[in-house]
């Protein structure tokens, strides 16, 4: 329930200070494939990556590629802001990276499948220019080349 009016002042001020882009409209791609036949990839801003990958540094606007069959014990999170509780993620990575839930949806026939990779960015960013102009579109093109129809975008 992080409604701003229920947050401690320190957190509220920190959030209000974050520069946020203001938009009136949004680009909109219709999903033409039914979900039961669609391929989905997670794109998370949780700063997750494989254990051997270089951790994210502060303000880093690059991304990491996570094979969709990677076991969660091979992943680590270098987004470690004190602004969120890390205990839920320690207990169950599905709290922001729901790979087990996706497998269940696929097994039940409600989702077609996942792409070969999920993608991860660093969260709590102030400057997003490079993500907007370079690394974000690059991940979009990679997803398209991998036959992915839908991206599920998850925060921490």
């Amino acid at each position, binding site marked *: *329930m992080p409604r701003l009016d229920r947050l401690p002042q320190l957190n509220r001020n920190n959030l209000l200070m974050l520069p946020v*882009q203001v938009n009136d409209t949004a680009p*909109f791609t219709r999903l033409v494939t039914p979900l039961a036949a669609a391929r989905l990839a997670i794109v998370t801003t949780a700063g997750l990556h494989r254990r051997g990958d270089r951790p994210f540094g502060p303000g880093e606007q690059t991304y990491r590629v996570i094979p969709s069959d990677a076991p969660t*014990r091979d992943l*680590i999170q270098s987004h*470690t802001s004190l602004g969120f509780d890390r205990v839920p993620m320690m207990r169950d990575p599905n709290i*922001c990276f729901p790979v087990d839930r996706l497998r269940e949806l696929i097994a039940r026939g409600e989702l077609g499948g996942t792409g070969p990779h999920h993608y991860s960015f660093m969260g709590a960013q102030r400057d997003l220019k490079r993500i907007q102009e370079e690394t974000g579109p690059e991940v979009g093109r990679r997803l398209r080349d991998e036959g992915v129809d*839908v991206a599920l975008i*998850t925060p921490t």
Partner: protein
Amino acid sequence: MLARALEAEGIATTSISMVREHTEKTKPPRALFVPFPFGHALGRPSDPDLQHRVLRAALDLLTEPAGPVLRDFPDDAEPGVEPPAPAQASGIAPAAAVPDDPALETAQMRQYHEQWLTRSGGRTAFGLSGVPATRFRGVVRFLQAFAAGEDSDVEERPADLPLVNFIRYCADDWKALYFEGRLAMKPRVTGDDVARWFWGETAAGQVLRRVRDRLDASEDPRWKAAAFGVAR
């Protein structure tokens, strides 16, 4: 933001939003606002039913004919027991008697962390510094020295990794060792309980408060930013 970039490349997106006020401004094509505490994007850990309901609500937005669309996940699903944001060091008074030997305390916590690894199947938040738990005593000495105002280093620090980034990873690993160790020790505690114990009752918590103080006293904005990440 990210959603907009992907959508422009022809990928349909649906996003989970934690801060409604931000999402109202950025206007991603489809977003589900969830009323959960930070760190709980899909509801509650180890609650597949709630996680599935959140996932389903997010995926349902894909059938909307036009956007941007921002929908609220129903309030009645709030986990309830956790505060909306974790307790911070500045709001937790250290206990009257806190252990004063961080190295000994860390050695004890490592035993609980071993239990955690057994139970989690090897899953752990520990490992950002690159220094294995078996050699973490050197990191503890390093952080103690830094907190005391001394200049020191650890031989495992990669040459291309700035000292301040390494300090942050070391602090994160130290917290991970304690937090996961505590979860092995007391499996039913909340994240809030663990934070209050760490900052209030452990020697490690007190060293990290002093690491924060030294980083924060610097004029260098990167040091100040790291201070905000170590303790606030």
